[in-house]
């Protein structure tokens, strides 16, 4: 078991280094994140200002914080566009993955945690400065709050990855999954609370969101890091994230097992 932990550490490190080789993409990512952040923060802050009072607990500063913490996370938490595994199923390259004595979903998860760590440092951290300068943001006050916030980010990355992984598993059954990944991205992005806070949703939609893992991807770590959720509420939110990571992990393992029996790699 200890040996396997080292293996996952090395796989994560490989994911980190692999991502670090794409310097130009990182620079472009920082630029895009900043522009997108300025737009989001401006709209949200003016919406709150237009309402003339706090909206569902958000004043101008806290909604700016919400917007910019979302920008910090967006490079790390993969909400859209990941189809590497589905592509490998369709090309047959997945055969090489199955030759390793490791569970497939954990192999990929480790690599993604490494990728996310680099994205957080290289693409996320600069957003703290941009956000603080542009429209202001709130940071955790105590080291324990920082630690809980970072743990929440890691859980958000894992949960979002495992969600994508499950969607990619559809490739075992379907020849084409682009429509499915697109639909998933739209729903996930909305219910994760990336466009507007989940707290602003109408009651029925908030209930729908609460029944899904999506708020754990963005809203939960943003709430904790911006101080919107504190104390026991923050710990409860992290416990919910842990639950979703475990549930999605178990689902990933069993769907892989079922998909493996359906795999068709012809030739080569």
């Amino acid at each position: 078991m200890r040996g396997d932990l080292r293996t996952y550490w090395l796989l994560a490190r490989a994911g980190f280094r692999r991502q670090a080789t794409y310097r130009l993409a990182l620079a472009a990512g920082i630029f895009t994140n900043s522009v997108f952040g300025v737009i989001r923060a401006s709209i949200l802050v003016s919406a709150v200002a237009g309402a003339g009072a706090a909206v569902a607990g958000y004043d101008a500063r806290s909604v700016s914080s919400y917007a910019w913490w979302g920008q910090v996370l967006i490079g790390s938490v993969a909400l859209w566009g990941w189809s590497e595994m589905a592509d490998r199923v369709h090309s047959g390259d997945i055969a090489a993955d199955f030759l390793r004595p490791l569970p497939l979903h954990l192999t990929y998860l480790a690599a993604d945690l490494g990728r996310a760590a680099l994205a957080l440092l290289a693409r996320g951290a600069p957003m703290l400065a941009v956000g603080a300068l542009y429209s202001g943001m709130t940071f955790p006050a105590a080291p324990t709050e920082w630690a809980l916030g970072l743990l929440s980010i890691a859980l958000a990355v894992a949960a979002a990855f495992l969600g994508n992984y499950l969607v990619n598993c559809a490739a075992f059954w379907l020849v084409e999954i682009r429509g499915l990944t697109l639909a998933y991205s739209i729903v996930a992005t909305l219910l994760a609370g990336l466009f507007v806070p989940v707290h602003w949703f109408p009651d029925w939609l908030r209930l729908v969101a609460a029944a899904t893992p999506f708020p754990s991807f963005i809203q939960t770590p943003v709430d904790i890091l911006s101080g919107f959720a504190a104390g026991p509420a923050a710990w409860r939110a992290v416990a919910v994230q842990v639950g979703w990571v475990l549930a999605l992990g178990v689902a990933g393992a069993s769907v892989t097992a079922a998909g493996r029996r359906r795999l068709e790699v012809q030739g080569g």
Partner: protein
Amino acid sequence: MPLTPAAIGGDSIIDVDRLTRVFRRRGAPALAAVDGMTFQVAPGEAVGYIGANGAGKSTTIKMLTGILAPTAGTARTCGFDPMRERRDLARHIGVVFGQRSQLWWDLPLQESFEILASIHRLDAPRAARRTAELVELLDMGATLTQPVRSLSLGQRMRAEVAAALLHEPALVILDEPTIGLDVLSKASLREFLIRERRERETTLLLTTHDMGDIQRLCDRVLVVDHGRLAYDGTLTGLADAVGVQRVLVVDLDAPTEALHGIPHTRWLGSEGDGVRQRLAFDAKVTTAAAVLTEVAERAGVRDLTIDEPDIEDVVRRIYSATT
């Protein structure tokens, strides 16, 4: 680590019984890529698994390694059920799919070896010793710090083989390991595999289109055609089985009439007004010496060569005989 017969659960390291895999196809009837295949491989054997494109070679290998589920029949590899015990099996086999990489594309080659050593739970001294050995034997010293994507095909194939053999597996399965390699790269890879087998008594299963691989590496040949086993035996036996003939080419002192009617031979043709003539004969019925004696009675022989059966031709005949 060598597997004992007790650990394998029998005398065979590969045991395939009526193995079948059917692929469903859109707008076409289902295809039995592997169709009721039965064979065994004993530990330490080196088996060439040959056949035309689409004959079922790769599909068989993917069922032996736990990648594809059989439609019917059973496969046991190193004593494991490959589908149910994929991860246990993976610790005992080393596999190279010539067209699919198991290396980390964007990272220096040595990181792939480091990760694979950890995946296979090699302790640090053993990992270092084995990596150093493979780097030396496969001449990879200069490429270790290069990203895998920048390696030439020959360099990458050597790295793939090293990656598959890092944990000293009891069974090595190579699917087209020499595809696209130049003559020198092929030769050095073969030398390495011969040495590995000699020193570790590794079992080898090899698919290839290159008959040189089979001749140099394998003591047994399985020919697969349309998902079925068409031949199982030695390479020379294969040539005998399809009745391939050897060809005697003689250079004569002077232009000579066509050498028809020499016992047990067939006249194939002549060049230069009959100075060079070609005669096919069956080595089971007559000998090169007997044919030569007959020829010498008709004309002075200055030089001669004997063309051995072309193995590609042998396989082609097997295919056409079974279709």
